[in-house]
């Protein structure tokens, strides 16, 4: 255990603080998660990449900064941006899920071609996994790709494809070997979204916004080299991606960010002059959650150390999505209670404008349930924790999770 800062680290912290102070006017307001990055976002991203505050450990030849792995550096940078409230750069499915997957199993050619544009925010990816008939049962995918004249010809339908309506590319799980057993018949393809035959239809959710899409494929043709690993390896690649998705969805920094926002609300005087933080029953609710968030944050530091040292955290990694999304829902539950009746006004603004704080909390309150379900529902997570993490036997004769 060594969380002390070396001289080098203190210097970095001062540098990052100075960078933020100098450039904060150039930063976009939000992380740009659910929208196509605009010019301001792209310029900010370029600045962060150049300074090494984004993609710090990604090799230079793939467009990163190429610094050696140093956990505390990453923590210092995240902390500085967190404290300042300034955007730490783009986080989307391409950056958080596909890039680490390609770094792990992509070809040299794929890494050189895709990682740079993706981390620069120039290429936006969406995820083609779930299908209407098989939400949790990803391996049951029916969308098929037959090889004809050196191309995959894709037919079928995907659902829950967030950002499909503005994405450039999709990483797609589809059936290429229909004669092989369920899990062995899948492949993982990289598909340009402007390929003829792709149709994207928005899907409105309970928040009232169109956060997801249905994507239809009719004789969509992509070259056979647009595959990650080999034919039939799709399930393996998808699981690597899912591993990173689980970590993304259980993100401890987001939990901490929310906790702090709730604390600030509870410290503000209400119309009768009282503060909820002074009411012991409310304060105790916040404190219980603070304890849980602290555990999640320290756990995250432990996982980062494992990652930096090339150790598989096993169980510790498998619990993150389930634990984090359930905790996030409990945090937003407190937030909407703190807002009370005055927070019920709800006017989401769509993609163009910022939502007011109360609307944002209620969106999160609902969206968090979507995150409990998406990326492998809680039950799927519990299967994974029980079977892969604890070595408990699978259900006899049941399908595969």
């Amino acid at each position, binding site marked *: 255990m060594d969380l002390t800062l070396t001289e080098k680290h203190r210097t970095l912290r001062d540098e990052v603080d100075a960078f933020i102070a100098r450039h904060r006017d150039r930063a976009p307001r939000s992380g740009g998660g659910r929208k196509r990055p605009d010019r301001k976002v792209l310029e900010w991203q370029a600045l962060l990449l150049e300074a090494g505050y984004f993609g710090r450990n990604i090799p230079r030849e793939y467009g990163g900064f190429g610094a050696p792995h140093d956990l505390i550096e990453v923590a210092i940078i995240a902390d500085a941006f967190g404290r300042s409230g300034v955007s730490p750069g783009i986080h989307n499915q391409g950056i958080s899920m596909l890039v680490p997957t390609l770094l792990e199993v992509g070809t040299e050619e794929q890494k050189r071609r895709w990682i740079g544009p993706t981390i620069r925010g120039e290429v936006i990816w969406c995820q083609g996994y779930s299908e209407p008939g098989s939400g949790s049962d990803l391996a049951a995918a029916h969308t098929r790709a037959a090889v004809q004249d050196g191309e995959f010809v894709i037919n079928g339908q995907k659902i829950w494809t967030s950002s499909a309506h503005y994405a450039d590319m999709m990483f797609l799980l589809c059936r290429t070997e229909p004669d092989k057993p369920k899990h062995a018949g899948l492949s993982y393809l990289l598909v340009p979204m402007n390929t003829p035959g792709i149709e994207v239809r928005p899907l*409105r959710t309970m928040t009232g916004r169109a956060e997801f899409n249905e994507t239809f494929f009719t004789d969509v043709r992509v070259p056979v080299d647009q595959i990650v690993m080999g034919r039939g390896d799709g399930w393996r690649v998808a699981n690597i991606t899912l591993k990173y998705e689980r970590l993304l969805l259980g993100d401890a920094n987001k939990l901490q960010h929310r906790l702090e926002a709730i604390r600030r609300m509870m410290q503000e005087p209400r119309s009768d002059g009282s503060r909820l933080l002074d009411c012991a029953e409310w304060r105790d609710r916040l404190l219980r959650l603070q304890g849980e968030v602290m555990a999640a944050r320290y756990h995250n530091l432990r996982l980062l150390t494992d990652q930096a040292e090339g150790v598989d955290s096993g169980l510790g990694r498998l619990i993150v999505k389930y634990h984090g999304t359930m905790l996030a829902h409990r945090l937003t539950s407190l937030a909407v209670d703190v807002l009370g009746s005055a927070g019920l006004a709800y006017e989401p603004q769509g993609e163009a404008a910022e939502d007011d704080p109360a609307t944002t909390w209620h969106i999160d309150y609902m969206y968090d349930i979507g995150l409990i379900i998406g990326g492998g529902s809680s039950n799927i997570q519990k*299967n994974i924790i029980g079977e892969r993490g604890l070595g408990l036997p699978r259900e006899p004769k049941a399908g595969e*999770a």
Partner: protein
Amino acid sequence: MRFGLTEDQKLFDHSLRGFLSARLPPDVLRRLAEPGNGFDADLWKGLGELGLHAMLVPEEYGGAGLSLLDAALVAEALGFHAAPTPFAASLVMAVRAFQAAADDVQRRIWIPRIAAGETRIGVGLGGLSGQTGRAALRLQGGRLSGAVDGLLDGGGATHFLVYLADGRAALLDADATGITATLRRSVDRTRPLVDLDLAETPAVEVLEASNAPLQVAARVRDAGRVMLAADMLGAAQAMLDRAVAYAKERVQFGRVIGSFQGVKYMCADMAAMLEPCRAMVWYAAYAQDAILEEAAIAANHAKAHLAEVTREVARLATEVHGGMGFTDLLGLHFQFKRITFDRQVLGTSERCRHDAAVAQGWIGA
């Protein structure tokens, strides 16, 4: 003694649910939830024909003189169908307020108008209910100034009944001078709230209970809390029913998902939590009329407990539906949001439990 519903109550419940089911198919509900005033005159009229407008009104004023338990059954059915209509404030709290605190003349004028469905009163208790937002009013020379947020049954209201901190209540015409009523679309698209800004607005009536006005106001609030508890019960029951039905149909991993213990236990947990809530709502409603010494405790605990249970049911039922539960397609979210709304208005769970502690003398007010 019986702890249960009468045959009359079951029959009425059945016909009301039949009406709502026919009148509010998903596409109609979705249309009514689009921007507008959250009030549908046809639906209002239909509910009046079923007798809802006058149900709580005493027979001497031309009403049916039914009990708060009957009203709770209505609230439950409205919650079940996520019906976009005024009820808890306009047809329950307002009637109770006039009965408890109005003088004879006021009652004779206003109660029949409520019973006829022509006067719809949005109600705001402000700080007395623990609602958040603005709540600062002063009454001087029959004129009301200040602001109060979050009036219930704001959509289509012809009048507003707002409570002062001392327990008196002023009735305002929605079209009076000096009144600015802002209709806020709430996350529950079926029920908007109203924020009032008042500048020397003339009060049509002032209700002044001759005795213990704060206690009288608390009784009005408690009647409202029971209605919200019943609304949550109905909404959660609808979500549970649909989750169970979905679990019996949906196939994943080659099996109906309801045969997986993971899904089955979610449903069992929901049922185990929710089923005792029904008796609690019945008792709380009944106590408002018949067991006055327990009325406040039962009402406050019903609101708080239903809020806790139905939040869990709302999440679990959505989870059972998987991604489909999160979409707009199934319309499951109308009940989800109904539960969200009911939880926050007329006081959060913590506030209601606090009031229950006060009501049983554990702590001072």
